[in-house]
């Protein structure tokens, strides 16, 4: 029997442990605050498991290296923060186009530019969605505490395999550096999705880009029994470049639909006291910790208030937000940016006029007191 391991760790370490639990075999990265601990810890842990850790010359090389490693059959990851994440955008699009599973951690700092490296921010929500050029769809996940960082990281690896796509883990500096307890689940306690490999035999024509009926696309390890082409150009079922309008249209639809059509399966969220709530916070990451604190205090005083904590940010779970907030009189989005998730919530609900923003953009964690003060303003009671 496996013994449960309990650790007192930073969020970054929870992410590392989860990646190894999920079967990480290859990591390449370039140091950047506040994600650096992920690289440092993996340089120790990965070779112990027979995996490989590489410090590359920059973030572009890092994401390219993990994409190459993934093609050969590895589960792969890189970790970075804003400036590095910006550098990765072109190759991120390559992984979308070539449908290569990979996990990219962005521990957010304040931006733009070098910004506020050692302070908290949640300013990269829209960049994660739209940073690479062209129409596409992408999965972006987040978490507010270490146990959830662990499970959402495992989810990220699973979804990367399931949908053959890059998955972005968007953490923030507070969650990454805060220390708290983490129980590492026993082996087998969490489901692990392994690479779906083709059953096509050696010598039989293999179509690397011909999805099965269920939309999934089995892979053949690069360097293995099937030789095929991979490209970032629009391509046909053999992976050969094509600009045939039918091929282009079909592939773009496939890339978007395989994710958007599964938004309910991809959506991860937590709800607190939503049943009868008239005021609902919508939040995520470390902001959700403060929001939850306010909810618990006010519930104790009998107020009908609740929290919808989003863990899937993209594809945006609009249906879930609409449904959960249908009875609310006041919806307050708590986040540390100028309203990036706010815009999504406004679009999702029936009446955007009842959606308000409680935010902080100065590099400091939004506190329960901040939220209370902003609520007084919203309610016209002054601070």
């Amino acid at each position, binding site marked *: 029997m496996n013994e449960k391991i309990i650790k007192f760790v930073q969020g970054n370490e929870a992410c590392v442990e989860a990646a190894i639990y999920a079967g990480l*075999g*290859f990591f*390449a990265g370039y140091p950047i605050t506040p994600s650096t601990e992920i690289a440092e810890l993996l340089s*120790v842990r990965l*070779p*112990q498991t*027979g995996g*490989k850790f*590489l410090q*590359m*010359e*920059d973030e*572009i*090389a*890092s994401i*390219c*290296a*993990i*994409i*190459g*490693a*993934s*093609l*050969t*059959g*590895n589960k*792969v990851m890189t970790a970075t923060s804003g400036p590095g994440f910006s550098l990765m955008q*072109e*190759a991120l699009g*390559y992984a979308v186009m070539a449908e290569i599973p990979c996990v990219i951690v962005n521990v957010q700092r304040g931006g733009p530019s070098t910004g506020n490296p050692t302070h908290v921010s949640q300013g990269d929500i829209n960049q994660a969605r739209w940073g690479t050029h062209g129409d596409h769809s992408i999965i972006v996940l987040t978490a507010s505490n270490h146990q959830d960082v662990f499970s959402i990281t495992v989810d990220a690896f699973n979804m990367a395999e399931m949908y053959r796509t890059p998955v972005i883990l968007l953490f923030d500096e507070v969650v990454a550096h805060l220390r708290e307890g983490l129980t590492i689940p026993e082996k087998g306690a969490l489901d692990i999705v392994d690479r779906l490999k083709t059953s096509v035999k050696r010598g039989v024509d293999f179509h690397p880009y011909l999805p099965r009926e269920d939309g999934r696309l089995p892979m053949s390890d*690069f*360097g293995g*029994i099937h*030789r*095929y*082409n*991979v*490209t*970032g*150009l629009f391509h046909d079922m*053999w992976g*050969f*470049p094509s600009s045939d309008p039918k091929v282009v249209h079909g592939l773009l639809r496939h890339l978007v639909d395989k994710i958007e059509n599964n938004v309910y399966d991809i959506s991860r969220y937590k709800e607190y006291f939503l049943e009868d709530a008239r005021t609902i916070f919508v939040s995520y990451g470390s902001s959700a910790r403060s929001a939850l604190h306010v909810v618990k205090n006010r519930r104790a005083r009998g107020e009908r208030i609740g929290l919808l904590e989003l863990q899937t940010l993209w594809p945006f779970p609009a249906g879930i937000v609409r449904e959960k907030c249908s009875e609310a009189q006041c919806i307050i989005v708590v986040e540390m940016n100028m309203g990036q998730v706010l815009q999504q919530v406004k679009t999702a609900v029936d009446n955007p006029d009842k959606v308000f923003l409680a935010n902080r953009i100065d590099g400091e964690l939004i506190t329960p007191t901040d939220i209370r003060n902003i609520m007084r303003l919203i309610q016209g009671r002054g601070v």
Partner: protein
Amino acid sequence: MAIKDYIRERFFPQMWCPGCGHGIILNGLIKAVEELGLNKNDIVMVSGIGCSARISGYLDFHTMHTLHGRALAFATGIKMSRPELNVLVPMGDGDALAIGGNHFIHAARRNIDMTAIVMNNRVYGMTGGQYSPLSGYGTLATTAPYTNIDHPFDVVDLAVAVGATFVARSTTYHIRQLTDLIKKAITHKGFSVVEILSQCPTYYGRKNKEGNAYEMMELMKQTTTPVGSEAKKQNHDLIETGVFVETDKPEYCTEYDKIIERAKKDN
């Protein structure tokens, strides 16, 4: 095996202009692989973006056509994961040394076992004839209408300086030498660089009045000489061809295996 056993006929006719040097390199590369008796299944070819980079699609290996300048970085992930594979990385001059210059010097520094082939036509062919870092001072290009004031790299000197353990140069005129050098580079354990001077009659040739493909290749014959030759001492402007460096240095994947052993022992 016959040449056609190494190509993907489905992909033909190829996209290169008549007389483009890149097709000669494709031919030499196939000959090299054939003469070495390599199994197609053991070869991975990773290319970037450019006319040169299209070479990968025509070959029946495991082929990956990546991003402009990044081929070596993708290849590093593949090679580290499957060190037993032969990894070939053909690149254009812009691909390898402008946008990809950083990856080029670091891959060489690590001495990771792969073969970088720089298909140097001294121009950005694919985008229509702009100058590259290899065009050279005084040349003309669509973005250097008043002559180019950029000084070029010497690919061989650069590769040697940054630690490549096999460095060679040939031209599309010298098809036999080109083939032999690619063979040596593939066999060498470590980071190998083969620069091959190639012709782009469509842009470089036309802009710089070097004539058609035949005349451009004739010029390559006249302006080159075997490394260490008497002719070079007489005429310093001649470009040397042949093998410049062939040394042993710990190879990256092999070294990483030792790291794994150490980590497992310490654990």
